[in-house]
């Protein structure tokens, strides 16, 4: 039997954005009927690669050969017409239009007067969708369908447009386990029909269930490619994170000193059984004063969601948070802040700083209500607080009046930290506090976290930087697919243990993990 035809050959693809080499000399080959896993951590270059393939970006260098011909797509539409369809994480359809119209938009059947033939359209839509396990009234608006069914409609639409390659960007992030099964059977059918599938996901179980081959990207480069079956889970995770197995733990790479120890007291924060549909399945975390608890896991494992659920920014369907023994009203950020829980969000730009305001205004933003009497703010008290924190956190600004947007990433992060510290919190939730800031600033932020814990604050630290997580935390709670799969304490907090727990094939997987994993 002849080997299946090569559908796509990408050679030496590179793309640079100002200051970042997003993709560096990457190759990728796809054959007909191949299901190819594309994996890598945040910033590894996955989405850049997908956007280059689908005409959203133009490559700086390299060739894309599609079905034997070099191509250069100017728009996603061109790529789609040529036969490369993409299904995005967020369903990209039109919620108010009917299911059938969404499926047929742009290629509606018409009668001999040139008018749309709805009877035929609805009949064909129903038939098509039945093949995807979706039985619905296709005349109803798409919005009335569940996310899983919407995803299937998007898939049906992508395939119906005679796609040769279907790219799926985290298609299961909002699906129920049952819907994931349906998706898999559709993917297998696509494979049997000779369509190549690029599958992006962080859920290892899924990758091993459905993918034949794999490409691992890290820092914009391809670091591994080959058959997925030849790579066990642990090697996959270590390749992805860039850590050799059994690599000696290098000392002194972070500025954490470990000079803080949890006082023997009761937990200052206890989160029990936090559940958010599709995202968290009964996560429990507790933090004692003076303790840094790390939250480990791959992208999409529920780390950010856990922090948000604790701080009230993400409504939970069940679960409880108590601060110093007092239950917190769920789903309310102000209540959490009043109780002393502050979240430093992952995305500084969109969820944290106000770039147009000054350093002074950014720092005093949250604390203002506390400094005002009868609605009037005491300028002197604001000044004193702002100056204290500029000094204590070593914020480098020309003056308190400088706009925060003009500061470096590290200093922006410190301003945010100052904003929450001014509130005198009991617990700090830090989501990727050192991402995207330079080495020097990173070390300073790490040192600050240490100092704050030494002062008796409870800290929850989320970081994709393994060293930071291991050296900074007293304890690491490991998440996978929205559930706690393990907890490392004391001497167990090592890279090797952490990676094994993340990969989910540790022999010493404990009872917590057994109980918490779903399906």
């Amino acid at each position, binding site marked *: 039997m002849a080997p299946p035809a090569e559908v796509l050959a990408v050679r030496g693809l590179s793309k640079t954005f100002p200051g970042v080499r997003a993709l560096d000399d990457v190759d990728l080959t796809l054959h007909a009927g191949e299901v190819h896993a594309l994996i890598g951590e945040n910033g590894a270059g996955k989405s850049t690669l997908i956007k280059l393939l689908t005409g959203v970006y133009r490559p700086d260098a390299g060739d894309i050969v599609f079905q034997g011909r070099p191509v250069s797509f100017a728009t*996603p*539409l061109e790529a*789609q*017409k040529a036969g490369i369809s993409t299904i995005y994480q967020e369903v*990209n*359809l*039109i*919620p*108010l*239009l009917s299911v059938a*119209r*969404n499926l047929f*938009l*742009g290629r*509606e059947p*018409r009668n001999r007067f*040139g*008018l*749309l033939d*709805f009877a035929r359209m609805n009949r064909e839509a129903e*038939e*098509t969708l*039945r*093949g*995807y*396990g*979706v*039985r*619905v*009234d296709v005349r109803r608006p798409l*919005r*009335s*369908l*569940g*996310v*899983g*069914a*919407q995803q*299937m409609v998007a898939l049906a*639409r992508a*395939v*119906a447009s*005679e796609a040769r390659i279907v790219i799926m960007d985290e298609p299961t992030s909002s699906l129920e386990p*049952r*819907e994931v*099964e*349906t998706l898999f*059977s*559709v993917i*297998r*059918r696509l494979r*049997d*029909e000779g369509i190549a599938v690029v599958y992006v996901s962080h859920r290892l179980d899924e990758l091993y269930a459905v993918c034949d081959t794999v490409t691992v990207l890290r820092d914009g480069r391809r670091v591994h490619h080959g058959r997925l079956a030849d790579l066990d889970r642990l090697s996959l995770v270590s390749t992805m994170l860039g850590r050799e197995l059994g690599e000696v733990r290098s000392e002194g790479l972070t500025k954490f000193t470990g000079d803080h120890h949890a006082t023997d007291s009761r937990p200052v924060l206890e989160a029990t059984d936090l559940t958010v*549909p599709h995202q968290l399945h009964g996560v429990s975390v507790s933090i004692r004063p003076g303790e840094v608890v790390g939250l480990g896991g791959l992208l999409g494992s529920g780390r950010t969601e856990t922090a948000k659920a604790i701080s009230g920014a993400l409504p939970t*369907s069940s679960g409880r948070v108590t601060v110093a023994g007092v239950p917190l009203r769920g789903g309310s950020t102000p209540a959490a802040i009043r109780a002393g829980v502050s979240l430093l969000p992952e995305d500084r730009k969109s969820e944290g700083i106000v770039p147009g305001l000054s350093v002074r205004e950014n720092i005093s933003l949250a604390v203002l209500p506390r400094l005002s009497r009868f609605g009037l703010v005491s300028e002197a008290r604001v000044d004193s607080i702002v100056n204290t924190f500029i000094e204590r956190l070593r914020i480098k600004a020309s003056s308190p009046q400088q706009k925060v947007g003009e500061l470096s990433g590290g200093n922006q992060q410190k301003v945010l930290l100052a904003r929450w510290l001014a509130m005198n919190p009991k617990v700090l939730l830090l989501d990727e506090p050192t991402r995207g800031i330079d080495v020097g600033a990173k070390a300073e932020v790490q040192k600050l976290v240490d100092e704050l814990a030494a002062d008796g604050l409870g800290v929850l630290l989320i970081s994709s930087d393994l060293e930071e997580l291991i050296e900074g935390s007293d304890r690491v709670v490991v998440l996978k697919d929205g559930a706690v799969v393990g907890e490392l304490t004391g001497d167990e907090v090592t890279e090797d243990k952490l990676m094994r727990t993340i990969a989910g094939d540790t022999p010493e997987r404990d009872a917590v993990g057994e109980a918490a994993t779903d399906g």
Partner: protein
Amino acid sequence: MTVTKTQAPAVVDDGTRAAGDGPVGSARSERLSALVQQHGALAVLVIVSLVATFSFDSFATGDNVSNMATSSAFLAIVALGMTFVIITGGIDLSVGSLFALGGVLAAWGSRHGTLVALLLPLVVCGAIGVVNGLLVARSRLAPFIVTLAAMLGARGLMLAITDEGADTYLIGKGSFLAELGQGSTLGLGNPVWIMLALFVAGAVVLRRTRFGQHVYAVGGNEDAAALMGAPVARTKILVYTLSGVLAGLAGALNAAWLASGVTILGNGMELEAISAVVIGGTLLTGGLGYVSGSLVGVLLLKVIQNVINQIGSLDSSYQQVVSGAFLAVVVVAQTWLGRRRQLM
């Protein structure tokens, strides 16, 4: 498209669980909300008309109904174009000025023959619509700003033609144009028949052509529509052009009806048209709407005005107070229904 059904995958839930609660109840209330949103205005129109018929002897008379129909026709034609614009998620504030400009151009052009009198307003107002569309679609400016500029510009142009309103152009009696505006067929004024024909055509275009699908798609989710291959820019340019042409036509017919191009007309008409469209069940945020609803909205506004006139003791200034209050109630109800449908 080949779909082999060798493997029967598990059936995906039909999705009513979106909000995670009672699927049967939410589906029913969704349908009920949709029904109220689409036909609520019609029900109110029927009720108000019935009450008026029994309260005022002069309401349901042939003359009064025919007058109401004719005066509704001009606003309805404007609202038809506005419906398309609003469904794409846009807004057209220039239609009031274009209505006045269209009337003046028709009256001015009538000296050069009926063809010029009819074509001139359509071409000029259509061209301004094209410019609106180009600016909105290509330069990605906010429709509200673009059409506000066109509103000021068009009114300025009209004042220039009429020498600051000092010159009034008349339409000669007995001309074809005058007949079009003033004559009647089967008891209804010609403008009413023209308006009805336009609404039938508009409904067919919106519901049964690809262009119509694109109008809904662009308003429903512009980014998704672009990714799905809908010509977003072309669709937007077309709806603003359509809106301009229809406003010009309405102005021309109105001038024919009045036998002159009156410069002070059309002030605030854009707001009346928007009100009518929204009352008729079209979402101001786009993506959902009905041509028939806009007609009902116009009739409802006119009937209410007429009722206030019938009361007589009420100062006609209160018409606007009542219309404004009514619109506020409708928008609140619309938002509430929309949110209810979105969430459930």
